[in-house]
């Protein structure tokens, strides 16, 4: 296949290895650059770190739950916003990895940090499945809205199939799939520690672990997107034919991006399963599949920061609407979605960020 090694616009003499990658934390494909942005980002991170000090256990655990979903959203942002392929079926990888985590941990237990091994294996499985679907689609020259339909069909097939696995014959080792009622009984993530394991139930510990993972994934994606790989993705989104003419194997790039997006969805799936010790076929259903698209679209899909912040805002907003809005919650949610699409086509957070950027003169050129 075509070679991926490419001339690098950001490559300056003397920047090699880690320094080169660090320099890619900012660049043309991500919003926010310069000291001002990073100070703001550091302040946000500091606020996030101090958050548990000022809030009760429930609120912190709930915030941890919100963080669980951000990986799937960032993955979709990568696939849809940067690569231009709207996937309607990220939940397929979410669910697959979630079930895989359940099956593995129920069979091997949680001793000696085995839950983390299960996490890695399950995420890899989600990513591999996404690569397979990606290969099938992109090398099959499927594009545009049909990618959405294929991925949606995949997730609905998985849901329909899993929903009828209630019988005792549907088991993998010790783990019963348990049909529509969902699989439970898997352990939460555990950290081996002196004198016993720390169980990562929803609480402050889990919050910090997840916050660390979000920061790592976010910074990692920024570097990747500003690297040649990200530039090519954006080029494909803007004009696939031109990019192909320039000699890039666009299908390989699309497939890899799709695989990465699937792995991130799988990460969310594993974390969700471990968080609630439960995974169900309905997390691969139509409503569940539409949600990530809503988060990403409302936040702003063209920028990874907007996607991340937008997702957190939308999830938290919808939850408090449900708590305080009684039966009108769903109506208000619907109205908000219509409003967002009509008034801020690029996404709510994206629009706000560009305004701020314009004021400070440091937005994306």
């Amino acid at each position, binding site marked *: 296949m075509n070679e991926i090694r490419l001339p690098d616009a950001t490559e300056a003499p003397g920047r090699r290895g880690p320094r080169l990658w660090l320099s890619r934390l900012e660049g043309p494909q991500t919003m926010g650059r310069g000291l001002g942005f990073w100070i703001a980002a550091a302040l946000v991170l500091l606020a996030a770190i101090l958050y548990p000090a000022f809030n*009760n256990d429930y609120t912190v655990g709930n915030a941890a739950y919100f963080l669980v979903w951000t990986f799937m959203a960032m993955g979709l942002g990568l696939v849809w916003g940067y690569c231009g392929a709207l996937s309607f079926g990220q939940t397929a990888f979410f669910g697959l990895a979630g079930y895989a985590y359940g099956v593995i941990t129920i069979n091997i237990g949680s001793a000696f940090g085995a839950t983390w091994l299960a996490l890695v294996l399950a995420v890899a499985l989600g990513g591999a499945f996404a690569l397979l679907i990606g290969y099938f689609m992109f090398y099959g020259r499927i594009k545009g809205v049909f990618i959405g339909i294929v991925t949606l069909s995949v997730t609905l097939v998985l849901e329909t199939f899993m*929903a009828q696995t209630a019988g005792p014959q549907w088991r993998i080792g010790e783990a019963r799939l348990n049909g529509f*009622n969902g699989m439970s009984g898997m352990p939460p993530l555990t950290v081996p520690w002196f004198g016993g394991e720390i169980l990562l139930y929803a609480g402050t510990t889990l919050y910090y*672990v997840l916050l660390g993972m979000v920061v790592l994934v976010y910074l990692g994606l920024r570097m990747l997107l500003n690297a040649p790989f990200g530039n090519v993705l954006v080029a494909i989104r803007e004009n696939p034919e031109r990019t192909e003419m320039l000699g890039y194997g666009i299908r390989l790039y699309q497939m890899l991006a799709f695989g990465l997006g699937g792995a991130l969805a799988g990460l969310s799936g594993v974390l969700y399963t471990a968080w*609630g010790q439960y995974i169900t076929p309905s997390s691969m259903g139509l409503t569940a599949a539409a949600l990530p698209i809503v988060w990403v679209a409302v936040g702003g899909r063209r920028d990874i920061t907007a996607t991340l912040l937008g997702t957190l805002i939308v999830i938290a907003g919808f939850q408090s609407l449900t708590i305080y809005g009684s039966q009108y919650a769903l109506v208000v949610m619907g109205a908000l979605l219509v409003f967002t699409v009509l008034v801020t086509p690029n996404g709510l957070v994206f629009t706000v960020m560009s305004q701020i950027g314009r004021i400070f003169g440091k937005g994306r050129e």
Partner: protein
Amino acid sequence: MRIHHNRTLIAALLAGTCLASGPVLAQDGPIKIGVLEDQSGDFAAATNVKVNAIRLATQEINDAGGIAGRPIELVIYDTQSDNRRYQEFMRRVLQQDQVDVVFAGFSSASREAYRPIVNQFNGLAFYNNQYEGGVCDANMIVTGAVPEQQFSTLIPWMMETYGPNVYTLAADYNFGQISAEWVRQIVAEQGGTMVGEEFIPLGVSQFSQTIQNIQQSDADFVVTLLVGAAQASYYEQANSASVGLPMASSVNVGQGYEHKRFTPPSLANMYVTTNYIEEIDTPESNDFVERFRAMFPNEPYINQEAANSYIGINLYKQLVERAGSTDHDAIRAVIAEGDVCFDGPSGNVCLDPKSQHMSHTIYLARVESDHSITFPEVWENITPYWLGDAGCDLTQNDPSAQYTPSNPPPAQ
């Protein structure tokens, strides 16, 4: 990144120590009851009435001086027929609102979604739905009817009345599959024949092929275990194709009041075993319906789940008053005495200490061709025997698992 990493570990260390503490129970002030029910979404039709039944019971108890002198305070959330909302709000009521007990769940999937969280916080939850049975969990009290109560009465009666050939039509998920297993087993015990068994994925609304399969078989009656609004379209379609066979069900009428919603005679000749519906003509039931309608004049139908929720609140009152506190161990010690009973709208019911399920008076309701209801048979004091017989004994140990006839509790 390294600095951050260290901070994470320190924080993890600090936080790890304070995780084990459960909810602290206030001994005075109101008794808080969390209510998680689907007031919107797919299941809203059958569950809004549960919330109102809880409100009715609460008002009656509060008017009469509360539970041991303490008023009840309800904390109600709408779970939108969405399993994730159950997980979010179960944590919220247990951790943030610090409720003493939770009344939660319509679908079995929602119950399985919140059960790990109830166990994690060692909470206490009432599940007030009829369901496929088998939950052996000390943190759960189940007031709904289970298959052994509904089928051990219904199937023999139907076979005696209509004949030994049975066709089962069931929703293709846990409830349908496990219920179908019960039907199969009871039919075999009674010397009947299963002439057909078909499972329908949730959300399917077109039944032409199924109807033909039924017509082709020489069934004497059809057991319909269909669930959800889409699958309920079967009755209309079967009627218009003149299937004309008697139907037996454990789930219709008593839950989704299909006989009120569909045009007669699409449900004619259907037999349902239920532990309560508003047509039951006893003084207790009529009185209950009157009080309910006085408080909620627009309630479309008072179903079995409404009665069970109402009974549940009253049982909880009795448990707390006898235990002298809302402490779960004290409450379970009272249940273990084995004489926790309540005379309610559906007759006398008692809690079984082994499984923490409830005995019921089971009414056989027959839908006439004008969709009025008659009751050809009533069985009193039908116990939820299966879990206890199979080896679940919550007074001894707590496996917190769900069992089925083909996946029974491990032998002790």
